[in-house]
């Protein structure tokens, strides 16, 4: 049966109920349990097989091997490159990677906060020092 204004019921009803709009930055919904957020690396179990690095579709992972025998690795995780596909979590046979449901609002004016270093304190310092050394060398050459 053709009518005019078929949505009248909904339209009038809406005047008396709360708007469906979410006041996003002011009121936040809780993060879903399975939300794929920032990657967490657990160095204890890692064998340094590099499978996660190889499978990453967006080159977000770098695993620096300092000493394979004593299991000294540093994982560099670029949160800005990550597509949060969780392939690395599945690729890891030793289950040392997982995705937390935190930190999903990726807005920043700088790239620095997105580089996450995982590993022992000393090793990370070591890797960082090497990186800065390398960069100063290259600028010297320029």
């Amino acid at each position, binding site marked *: 049966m053709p009518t*005019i*204004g078929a*949505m*009248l019921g*909904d*339209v*009038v009803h*809406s*005047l008396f*109920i709360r*708007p*469906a*709009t979410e*006041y996003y930055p002011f009121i936040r919904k809780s993060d879903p349990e399975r939300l794929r957020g920032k990657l967490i690396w657990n160095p204890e179990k890692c064998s340094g097989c590099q499978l996660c690095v190889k499978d990453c579709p967006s080159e977000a992972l770098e695993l620096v091997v300092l000493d394979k025998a004593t299991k000294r690795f540093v994982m560099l995780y670029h949160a800005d490159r990550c597509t949060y596909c969780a392939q690395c979590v599945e690729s890891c046979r030793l289950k040392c990677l997982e995705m937390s449901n935190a930190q999903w609002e990726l807005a920043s004016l700088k790239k620095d906060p997105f580089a996450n270093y995982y590993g022992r304190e000393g090793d990370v310092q070591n890797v960082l020092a090497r990186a800065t050394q390398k960069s100063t060398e290259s600028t010297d050459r320029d």
Partner: protein
Amino acid sequence: MNLPIPPVIALLLFPGGIFLLGYGMIYEFVDRKLVARFQNRIGPRWFQPLADWVKLLAKEEIIPDGVNAGLFLALPVVALAGALTAALYAPVAGWIPSFSFRGDLVVTLYLLSMMTLCIGLAGANTLDRFSIVGATRALTQLFSYEAPFLLAILGPAIAAGSWQISDINAYAHSNLWMIVYQPIGFLVALIGLMGKLELPPFDAPEAETEIVSGALTEYSGRGLALFKIGRNVELVVGLTLIAAFYLGGLANPLEFILKTLALLLLTAGLQSLFARLRIDQTVGLWWRIGAIVALVQLLAILAGQALQAVL
């Protein structure tokens, strides 16, 4: 209310000028908020129309190639001036009209049409294809709703036996609300006003999904701001006229606010209920239904009056 207001103040401050600009913005806000609520959204905050307007005024005005620059700049001013002038003859805010003479109703209706004519000219002035299509549609729509709208406004005028807005207002105030015995006229007038203001579902002349922004596509900055504010003023004037004629006249500011807001609620509801009409559907609707219905109503009024005279 019948306090005399010096002409300069009436023109610049109240009830014309600044007051109308601000009041138009408030009504734009109320309209947008209502439509949003009808659609279960939050809608804008109270200062949004003002913020939009200030932003537009601050922006660069681009005059596109191939237009008559003088005309391009003058049209928004003329459109706004037309709407503001029309307000001087209407009982805005429940005040007696600032200016009044016999037959000012006709002048007011013409002034209200200035806006659409200016928009049509503005569209035709540019080389942009969207503008030209929009202008064609705006003018086509003008021809379709204008006659029924005029007929619908004539109803109360004939009933009151005067062509002067203040007379009709006074007549409406002292008699039964005309919406009761001229309901068709009321509906045609209200929907005609929506057509005039190009509100949905009569927004084919500026259908964003087809022709971007219609005739005003090439306008930016001040020109666009003036057109927008002009439309707000026209909304207020149009609502004032309909409230004065059909809802028992406007005798004081409170009555004015309540009655026009009630009308605004109604238009907002109508805006959110329908899909956009194609231009051919709009024309068909007005000429096939609107005009005939308004004409029948007019004849009924005349017949009624003749009958009254006989009795």
